[in-house]
């Protein structure tokens, strides 16, 4: 960057009150309640995912900074790589093999972030690029979720499983995995079952709000996200637009067809909805930055989530929805430039 003269002496002369590091750390902190819930319901696999994904992300970040001849410490100190690793880890199934996690995190950092120019220049959300790549390339591995509430592997057994694929004696792989509620509903609807039939068949699938267990994870992610809104780390517009639009559109379809279309609560509190709305869609680098643009961007994500969940080929859709809207971000920003002070018409 070539700064004009006196960059160190230009006004304002007050010490800065904000930093990228502070923002990223607050986001990471806000993830913790949801993260704990996820560990509670899905076991140590979440922790192993985290360690591997964050470790790989940070290592790749350092490597790429080195290769690109950038200052390593200030950039590592901004914690953006840690956050990318965390978001990917939370999205990956709990019985992922180690290489899946490593490949995903490395792809996110190396290709989606640094090959596009590093922090601030990447047009697509790196964690979601990593996730989507894995979903396309390794669809089978990407469904290996542990069932809610079942006995989970112990901490060491989980490590052994992730690293070697070996299960403790007497345990079958099939007994350990279960389709997620979104997945179950989707496949069952595909087999011409109605929702009441599905829920009767899988008694433990849903709770009062959304997928059993998932509803707590979603609620706690939402709580962390709301805290971020109050701390002004993220704007309220994107999450509000995602949630509201998803609510409206799912209500619209569920009202005439309650047996075939899951309720808005199910959509909001199952899968990665809240994680997506508060933590993924709000990634500043790749989201829209104008006030009206953020509303459109959030609404677009919600529409894609619903469309892909309902008619698309994948059970959950947050990653693709976010990536599709990332693509539209520059256009949205351009057409939603706010009216400047004293200006009558909109836009540049």
């Amino acid at each position, binding site marked *: 960057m070539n*700064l004009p003269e006196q960059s160190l002496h230009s006004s304002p002369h007050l010490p800065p009150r904000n930093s990228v590091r502070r923002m990223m750390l607050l986001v990471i902190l806000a993830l913790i309640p949801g993260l704990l819930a996820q560990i509670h319901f899905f076991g140590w696999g979440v922790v192993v995912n985290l360690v591997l994904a964050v470790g790989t992300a940070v290592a790749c970040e350092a490597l790429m900074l080195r290769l690109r001849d950038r200052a390593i410490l200030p950039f590592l100190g901004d914690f953006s790589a840690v956050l990318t690793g965390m978001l990917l880890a939370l999205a990956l199934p709990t019985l992922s093999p180690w290489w899946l996690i490593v490949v995903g995190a490395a792809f996110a950092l190396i290709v989606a972030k640094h090959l596009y120019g590093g922090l601030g220049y990447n047009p697509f959300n790196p964690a979601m690029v990593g996730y989507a790549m894995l979903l396309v390339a390794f669809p089978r591995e990407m469904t290996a979720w542990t069932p809610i509430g079942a006995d989970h592997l112990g901490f060491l057994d989980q490590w052994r499983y992730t690293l070697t694929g070996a299960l403790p004696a007497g345990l079958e792989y099939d007994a350990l995995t279960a389709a997620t509620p979104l997945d179950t509903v989707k496949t069952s609807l595909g087999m011409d079952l109605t929702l009441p039939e599905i829920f009767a068949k899988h008694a433990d699938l849903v709770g009062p709000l959304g997928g059993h267990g998932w509803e707590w994870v979603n609620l706690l992610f939402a709580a962390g996200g709301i805290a971020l809104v109050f701390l002004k780390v993220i704007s309220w517009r994107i999450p509000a637009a995602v949630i509201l639009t998803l609510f409206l559109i799912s209500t619209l379809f569920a009202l005439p067809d309650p047996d075939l279309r899951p309720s808005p609560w199910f959509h909001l509190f199952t899968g990665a909805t809240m994680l997506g709305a508060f933590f993924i869609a709000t990634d500043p680098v790749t989201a829209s930055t104008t006030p009206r643009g953020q509303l459109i961007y959030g609404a677009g994500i919600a529409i894609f989530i619903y469309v892909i969940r309902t008619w698309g080929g994948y059970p959950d859709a947050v990653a693709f929805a976010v990536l599709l809207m990332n693509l539209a971000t520059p256009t949205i920003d351009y057409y939603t430039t706010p009216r*400047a002070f004293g200006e009558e018409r909109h836009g540049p």
Partner: protein
Amino acid sequence: MTRRLWHFHGGLRLEGHKAMSMHEPITDAPLPQRVVLPLSQHIGAPAEPEVEVGQRVLKGQRIARATEYVSAPVHATTSGTVVAVGERTVPHPSGLPAPCIVIEADGKDEWIERQPVRDYESLDPSALRNVIREAGIVGLGGAGFPSFIKLNPGPDKVVDLLILNGAECEPYITCDAMLMQEHPRRIIDGLLVMRHALQAKHCIIAIEDNKKVAHTVLVNALQEHEAEFIEVVQIPTIYPTGGEKQLIKILTGREVPSHGLPIDIGMVVHNVATAAAVNDAIHEGTPLIERIVTVTGEAVDRPRNLNVRIGTPFSTLLKSAEWREDDTDEVLMGGPMMGFAVPDLDVPVVKTTNCLLARPRNQPHRQPAMPCIRCGQCATVCPALLLPQQLYWYAHARNFDRVQDYHLFDCIECGCCAYVCPSHIPLVQFYRFAKTEIWAQERQKEKADRARRRHEWHLERLERKKREEEERRRRKKEMLRKSRAAGDRGKQAEIEAALARVKAKKAAQQAPRNTDNLTEAQKQAIAAVEARRQRLQQGDDGES
């Protein structure tokens, strides 16, 4: 009286740091040995010196006159002898020298004869404006625009509202607050004069609600006047509520059009200190030769407000405020949000110097700039409703067309965006850079146009010469024929007449050279750009 208030988008709540410089009353700064008076302390053409080295001048005597409409004269601020007319370093971010008049004080501080205006109300507004112009009064809030121009609404404009700006929203600065506390009458009387000049219907004195004392004092002082058309209004303390456009928005809910002026919506804004100066000029016949300067900051032990003669070196004031030189990191002229670091502390106080802020060494420093993460925090606080991140993006990419599409020239350089930016990007610096670069380009283009015109003119001249040559030859032939006929009589006269013709033509061809009509500020800005370019070429340390 309560008045409905509006609000403007964005802005910041900043720590005021105002109390520290308000413990002591305003005191007179010591008379310096020399005063250095820049010829350009205002926006517009520099004043033209009318004194010579060695000449004795009196306090209040005009020493440089305004030669153009947008300009302001300069007056001697003490009696003494002119010892130099030449370049001196002036308070400007570029640190470049500019023409000044230097007066060696004789210590007598002898006034020129002053002529107050006896009954200003009987004076025609334009005569009144002339007195104000002759007094060298410029906007004392910081911009330094010649005040008489802002007292001239133009023939068919009606002024509904005259606003006196006593917001003083920048942290640390208290000169206006102290002025309001100690000299409310001067402000009100000045306001009345301004109102007369503008024929304004209604007046508001706007004060931020953190200046309770000033507010009370003014309200009380107003009770002595029968002036129900003046209202003292408290406005919320939000930076930059003292910005002209923001202030109007808060008070009236109306927005000055982009690229427009307040007068376009029937309003005029002046600073409270300017009103006091107008009062002095009219009722005492005193030109603008002193002003109140806040000398403050954590690196002075006795922060306070001083009544300072224009031309006093910064160092003298800092000493009066018991400055800890070793502990000083930098000295700013102006506040922390919009001020600039002065490279040389012997520069003189000018008409627009409202504050000297000495920053100590041990404060947390600006961190290195990181890439923009497009978080939009800057846009949330931008009072001009701009997208600072896009401005930055295009300024950085030197895309000067796009940066103007995003309203670069509506940016008031308030610094809110840079203050909240988590990536610590010196955003305002980029905007100033883009602005000066665009000016420079426009000037370049003008130059090219001028060169083209000159070239065309040159061709035309060649053509004309050729024609004249032919004409001359033809006439010569004729003359020869005639002289053969009439002998040598009259030949001498003929030649003389021809010579005179040539001379006259030559004189006519000395067309007026295109004088540089740039203001000093623009020249300095351009010089700064040049200097930067050279520096970039010399020591390009590339990526950072």
